[in-house]
């Protein structure tokens, strides 16, 4: 039974007398002296608080209360009512997808945060690319959030609804006698099937073709590759009876000879080659490949080649032909480069069946000889496979020419254009023909030159909003899945076509059905759902192809090709059109990340330009140096085949004399003109010839501009000034001797202690630098983690995918051409590119520190001055450079407010909130990797058109794990500390140690050649620890004593040391 206790408030309550009962009903225990107070008139009148005062206080009180009630705008963060199963706020999801833009194919992983895709990395599951991506693939996530994207369909420039479009266009397509579709290469089997469906549905109206039967497809879709590889397709048709692009296996190639083909950068399926190639560049492996590059303009491959020979484009054929002759074929005569060609031939002969010869020429005859050479070397079936075909380039120049002819003849009633921008890349010839077409439809995602001229614009989704699949290479399939709902009122091209074919199924269902019917049966899986789910998860799948191991028989007419090649003559100044790593064929032109990414070779941003050999420029009196206030000479480039553009001329050491190079892709007329710079070099292509050639002859005319023309170049000093503690490199034979002192000497100092050697001589004992350190070791030297990196300069090609990856991961501000020119680029990760000079050749091993004989004659000052200028055909080295996370960091001691400090895991940390912006740390950084926020890049109106983070849409790409820095604070590489923290938490949850390789920085994850190894120095088993102990490992300017955590691996070139 409950014992109810009663508690009394006091004795009065216990007594409970009537007085208490009465008073307990009152609110106040005692009577308030109201009457007393108000009754005394005198007191009231004497009181200082008058009625006026009362009203004043009342007024103030009301005003204050109402002011206090006014809220500052509230930004709401609303939690999920029903949390989507896969989304946990704060955790990233990765989805496998596929990137293909007509040029680059890459299976990718898309990182999404709270439903927003924010970062793209390569999919390492892919056996084709092995996770390789380039900067364009990586930066494509930014174009998803481009405010200049088309947001709704339009007819004749006026926005409309899809229903109107479907209605009107449906009628017009029905009425049209001939419907033609112009696309880039279609590697998606489902898209191909959509096209088939579309043509079947509209079959009655399809114009039946003419005599172009040889390589015709069963419907009237024309494939137009922005960068044409027609020459290779036709040469293979002539050689093997199939108009295909073969697959190359660079992993097995001991000798590679490339004539004008930038196979590490932009040539064909470079992303499928570059990782394989890097595997062959391990100097401690069984063998190391040797690369010969004959080319006019310095390409990425040229900078990495062991032997680079500047050759005019008109001589590419002759070089190939004479190489054929040297190999024993019935090739052409000697060229001026015979010694080098012989050397290449010798190396090729020594590695028959384990070599590759490629050529960048789009001339069928040249390619036939290339095929003949590879046949002669027995490379087919070994390093080159014509049975496993690459589908990524299918366009034939003749077909495009025929389409234009048909259009001009009025044979085309409706033209649908998808994925290409012919008005930009072909120009007037196409524009004129397009005027004859009644119905023109563009599927562009962004307004481009072609879409602007089209009647109907039916904007397609961005790739990250779309379903897709791809069959890039025989037997290899990949899937692309949307990672976000369409941001705007757009509809995927394939879905539009399905709709117009009377098929109302979604493209997702269509793909699934296609895969169930076509891919699944080849896969050998039991259940389609499992197969589909697994493929969707992995992104890629390989299926066994029906064995067509009938070895292709080479049947090309070499002698005809040789004589045709002989007829190629160059005249005047020769032009080579190239693609650079940022803008490519044009896809990056309106992507600020790519425009601001310094070109791997010239280090120039936001521009295209004419590259010319500096010695030729000096003859003409042109400016050959770079700098904030160095204005460039501007010329009009007149192509002999028509077309004329105005561009600045810049010095490119290694450019073949008598030639100039110009990058295509720049100078679009439509789009954000703040972002799109330069001039359209596609206009220099001679369109009167049916075969597209990227070589030509030009005349240059000086232009006098009213204002000086400046270039935004991030590296104004081109050479390393003989500083061999910055760059260490050697030759393979020196390296193979195994004497570390010869190629990577350890820094020592004489200690002052003496010892007597066996001859009785006294000499000072040399001790390693560490012994002389004024500073003690970090207390955590061998405790916990010590994060660090190792960068293999042998694997790094300089492609700069890491640069954009870092920008994307770390929310780095885009600052525009003017600010970059002023030396204020914000990139945390940069790639230093050094040319060798005549007096201190980079490749001259062991000679970098010792002055050469010529240098002695010049004297110290003369030698230094001479070293400032790069050699005519320099060897090149790329050195990724970011914060070295010094254990004895110069920056940390000098900050007056301790805003930059050392973590107990070896990281040099930056507390933005604490920084007051004295820039002392940046001055005292020996590596100059610190970046200052000179302006408020995220709000200052000067950057509104430049920095994508200034608009609400562009901000969606920001990584929520990384703070956006404001004006006046310093920033720098953090070794992706947010990823380290995430990795540590994951390990903690899993109850294990952090596994080696589990944490990847943005740069190491993006690197297509795995040149960057991130890891824990304290983990003895880690790859990093092994690399640190390698005989090639060194630290940049180690002798200064900063004790950095980033190691570099000495570059080894496959050359012989000079005697």
């Amino acid at each position, binding site marked *: 039974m409950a014992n109810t206790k009663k508690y009394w408030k006091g004795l009065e309550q216990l007594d409970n007398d009537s007085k208490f009962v009465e008073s307990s009903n009152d609110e106040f225990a005692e009577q308030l002296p109201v009457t007393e107070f108000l009754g005394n008139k005198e007191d009231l009148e004497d009181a200082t608080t008058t009625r006026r005062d009362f009203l004043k206080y009342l007024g103030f009180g009301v005003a204050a209360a109402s002011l206090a009630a006014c809220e500052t705008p509230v930004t709401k963060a609303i939690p999920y009512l029903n949390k989507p199963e896969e989304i946990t706020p704060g955790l990233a999801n990765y989805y496998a997808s596929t990137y293909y833009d007509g040029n680059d194919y890459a299976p990718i992983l898309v990182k999404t945060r709270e439903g927003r895709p924010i970062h793209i990395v390569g999919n390492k599951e892919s056996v084709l690319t092995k996770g390789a991506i380039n900067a364009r693939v990586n930066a494509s996530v930014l174009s998803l959030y481009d405010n200049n994207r088309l947001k709704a369909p339009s007819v004749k420039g006026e926005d409309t609804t899809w229903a109107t479009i479907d209605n009107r266009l449906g009628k017009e397509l029905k009425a049209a006698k001939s419907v033609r579709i112009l696309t880039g290469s279609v590697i998606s089997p489902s898209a191909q099937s959509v096209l088939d469906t579309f043509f079947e549905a509209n079959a009655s109206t399809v114009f039946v073709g003419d005599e172009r039967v040889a390589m015709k497809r069963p419907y009237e879709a024309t494939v137009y590759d922005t960068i044409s590889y027609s020459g290779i397709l036709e040469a293979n048709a002539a050689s093997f009876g199939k108009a295909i692009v073969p697959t190359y296996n660079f992993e097995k190639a001991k000798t590679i000879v490339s004539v004008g083909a930038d196979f590490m950068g932009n040539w064909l399926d470079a992303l499928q080659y570059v990782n394989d190639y890097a595997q062959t560049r391990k100097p401690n492996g069984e063998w190391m490949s040797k690369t010969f590059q004959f080319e006019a303009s310095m390409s990425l491959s040229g900078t990495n080649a062991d032997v680079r020979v500047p050759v005019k484009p008109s001589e590419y054929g002759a070089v190939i032909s004479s190489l054929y002759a040297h190999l024993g074929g019935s090739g052409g005569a000697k060229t001026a480069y015979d010694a080098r060609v012989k050397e290449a031939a010798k190396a090729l002969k020594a590695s028959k069946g384990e070599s590759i010869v490629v050529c960048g020429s789009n001339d069928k005859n040249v390619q036939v000889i290339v095929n003949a050479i590879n046949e002669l070397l027995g490379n087919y079936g070994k390093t080159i496979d014509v049975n496993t075909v690459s589908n990524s380039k299918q366009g034939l120049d003749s077909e495009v020419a025929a389409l234009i002819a048909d259009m001009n003849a009025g044979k085309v009633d409706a033209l649908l254009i998808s994925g290409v921008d012919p008005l930009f890349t072909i120009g007037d010839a196409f524009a004129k023909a397009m005027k004859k077409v009644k119905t023109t439809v563009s599927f562009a995602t962004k307004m481009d030159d072609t879409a602007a001229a089209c009647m109907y614009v039916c904007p397609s989704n961005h790739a990250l909003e779309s379903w897709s699949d791809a069959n890039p290479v025989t037997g290899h399939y990949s899937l692309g899945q949307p990672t976000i709902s369409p941001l705007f009122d757009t509809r995927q091209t394939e879905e539009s076509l399905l709709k117009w074919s009377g098929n109302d199924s979604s493209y997702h269902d269509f793909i699934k059905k296609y895969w169930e019917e076509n891919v699944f049966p080849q896969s050998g899986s039991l259940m389609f759902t499992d197969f589909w789910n697994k493929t969707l998860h992995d992104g890629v799948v390989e299926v066994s192809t029906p064995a067509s191991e009938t070895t292709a028989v080479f049947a090309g007419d070499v002698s005809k090709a040789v004589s045709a090649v002989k007829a190629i003559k160059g005249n005047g100044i020769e032009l080579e059109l190239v693609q650079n790593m940022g803008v490519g064929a044009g896809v990056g032109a309106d992507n600020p990340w790519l425009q601001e990414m310094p070109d791997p070779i010239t280090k120039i941003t936001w521009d295209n330009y004419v590259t010319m050999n500096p010695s030729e420029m000096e003859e003409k009196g042109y400016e050959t140096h770079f700098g904030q206030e160095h204005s460039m000479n501007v010329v009009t480039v007149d192509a002999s085949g028509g077309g004329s553009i105005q561009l600045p001329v810049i010095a490119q050491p290694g450019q073949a004399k008598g030639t100039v190079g110009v990058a295509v892709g720049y100078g679009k007329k439509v789009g954000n003109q703040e972002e799109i710079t330069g001039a359209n070099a596609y206009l220099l292509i001679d369109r009167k010839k049916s075969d597209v050639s990227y070589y030509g002859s030009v005349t240059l005319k000086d232009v006098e501009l009213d204002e000086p023309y400046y270039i935004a170049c991030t590296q104004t000093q081109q050479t390393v000034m003989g500083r061999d503690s910055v760059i260490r490199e050697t030759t393979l034979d020196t390296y193979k001797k195994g004497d570390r002192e010869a190629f990577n000497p350890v820094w020592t100092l004489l200690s002052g202690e003496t010892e007597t050697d066996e001859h009785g001589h006294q000499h000072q004992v040399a001790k390693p630098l560490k012994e002389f350190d004024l500073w003690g070791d970090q207390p955590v030297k061998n405790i916990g983690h010590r994060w660090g990196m190792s960068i293999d300069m042998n694997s790094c090609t300089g492609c700069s995918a890491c640069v954009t990856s870092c920008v994307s991961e770390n929310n780095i501000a885009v600052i525009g051409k003017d600010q970059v020119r*002023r030396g204020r680029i914000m990139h945390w990760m940069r790639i230093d590119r050094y040319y060798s000079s005549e007096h201190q050749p980079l490749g001259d091993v062991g000679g970098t520190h010792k002055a050469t004989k010529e240098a002695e004659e010049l004297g110290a000052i003369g030698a230094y001055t001479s070293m400032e200028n790069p050699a005519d055909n320099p060897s090149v080295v790329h050195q990724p450079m970011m914060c070295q996370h010094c254990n004895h960091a110069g920056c940390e001691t000098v900050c*007056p407010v301790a805003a930059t400090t050392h973590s107990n895991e070896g990281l040099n940390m930056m507390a933005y909130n604490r920084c007051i912006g*004295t820039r002392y740390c940046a001055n005292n950084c020996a590596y100059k990797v610190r970046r*200052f926020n000179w302006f408020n890049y995220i709000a200052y109106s000067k950057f509104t058109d430049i920095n994508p983070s200034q608009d609400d849409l562009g901000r969606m790409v920001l990584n929520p794990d990384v703070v956006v820095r404001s004006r006046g604070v310093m920033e720098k590489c953090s070794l992706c500390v947010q990823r380290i923290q995430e990795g540590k938490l994951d390990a903690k949850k899993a109850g294990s140690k952090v596994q080696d390789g589990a944490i990847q920085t943005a740069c190491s994850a993006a690197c297509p050649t795995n040149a960057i190894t991130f890891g824990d120095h304290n983990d003895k088993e880690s790859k990093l620890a092994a690399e640190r102990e390698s005989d090639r490992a060194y630290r940049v300017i180690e002798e200064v004593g900063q004790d950095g955590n980033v190691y570099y691996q000495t570059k080894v070139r496959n050359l012989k040391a000079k005697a």
Partner: protein
Amino acid sequence: MHKEAAIREPLILGNPTYTDISNDVLHAIENKPTKLWKVLMVIASIAAVWGVGCILYLLGVGIGTWGLNNTVGWAWDITNFVWWVGIGHAGTLISAVLLLFRQKWRMAINRPAEAMTIFAVFMAGMFPMIHMGRIWMAYWVLPIPNQFGSLWVNFNSPLLWDVFAISTYLSVSLVFWYIGLIPDFGTIRDRATRPVQKLMYSLLSFGWTGNAKAWQRFEEVSLVLAGLATPLVFSVHSIVSMDFATSVIPGWHTTIFPPYFVAGAVFSGFAMVQTLMLIVRKAMRLEQYVTIKHIEYMNIVIIVTGSIVGVAYLTELFISYYSGVEYESYAFINRFSGPYWWSYWAMMTCNVVSPHLFWSKKLRTNLAFTFVMSIIVNIGMWFERFVIIVTSVHRDYLPSSWSMFYPTWVDIGVFMGTLGIFSVFYLLFLKYFPVLAFNEVKSILKSSGEQYKNMSDEEFKALHPVFKKDKK
């Protein structure tokens, strides 16, 4: 009272009485401003307003309005800072060190030199403030107890030492200067006729009575403050030099910087005193008190400190060669032969070559020549700081980061502005403050005044009853 040797030149020319001295010095205060003063004031104000405008623009928009870049993080800002601090050296040296050494010639120039010091340190102190990316957080450099997780300053940072050094120097100089002003303010107060003026100066004079006890205490305080200030003369610029000396940048990392900077500072400080005094003595008719001898003395200091600086330059060059350190030797080769060769040679010409012209007595007693030289020295010293700061950092370890610095109109505007603000302060000082320490000058009238020096012993003794007694 002792009689100074005849061989010493008189420090006060002519035959002024005590009243004459007061009248001469206080003429500007007690009369309407002259036309020249007004013209100079207008020019200085325009420059000052322009400078303030530039600074506001800088603070509003960001440090990017200067010409700095990722490689060159300091240029004109810190050059100007060190230049102004250097100029601020002469005042305290003259008032403190020369006081301790009983150099009587300091009496005529210590007041204007100290005023210059204080205004120059104002200007100098402004640069470390406005060069910050986030000036609104500037108070974080002070070790103030706080609640930001109790974040403390970094005592390893020379920039923090700078904060202490400059603020100590400024406060001690200010106190020293003000103590010296008190007796003079007392005199002005006593002579003032207008009520407002009288009130102001009586406030400023802190109730100075002028009795013997007050004078005795005054002397004691001056001596104590001189003792305090003397080490500061050497510490301030030594510490400023450590901003560079403790770094790792070749050309900055130089152990001889402290003495070298101090010598340079005295060098430029005296040059600035010359520039100002030559104008002031002429415009305010003070030739009697600031004599050719004074000018000559200062020129001699310029020769000595200029030579020290010259030796320092050559030592640096030699050591850079002798050290065999690749970066160090390149830094110095780059200084004299690189893209900034002109600034190095401007510095060498102005600072090392030109002061040696003063070995000629004719030149060092020539006023026009001295004036031109004083300007040249200050140009040279500006270039010295520019050379050290910019030409070292613009080409350091990794050639990939090599860069150039180009000043913008804001850089130039801020510098011109500080010249303007400084001039405004100085002109106000000339108008409202006793420009010479005239009560102290009076104290040497009878020992170093011309008329007394030219007296015969008898006349001199007749003046002083003390000597009469001796005769007995």
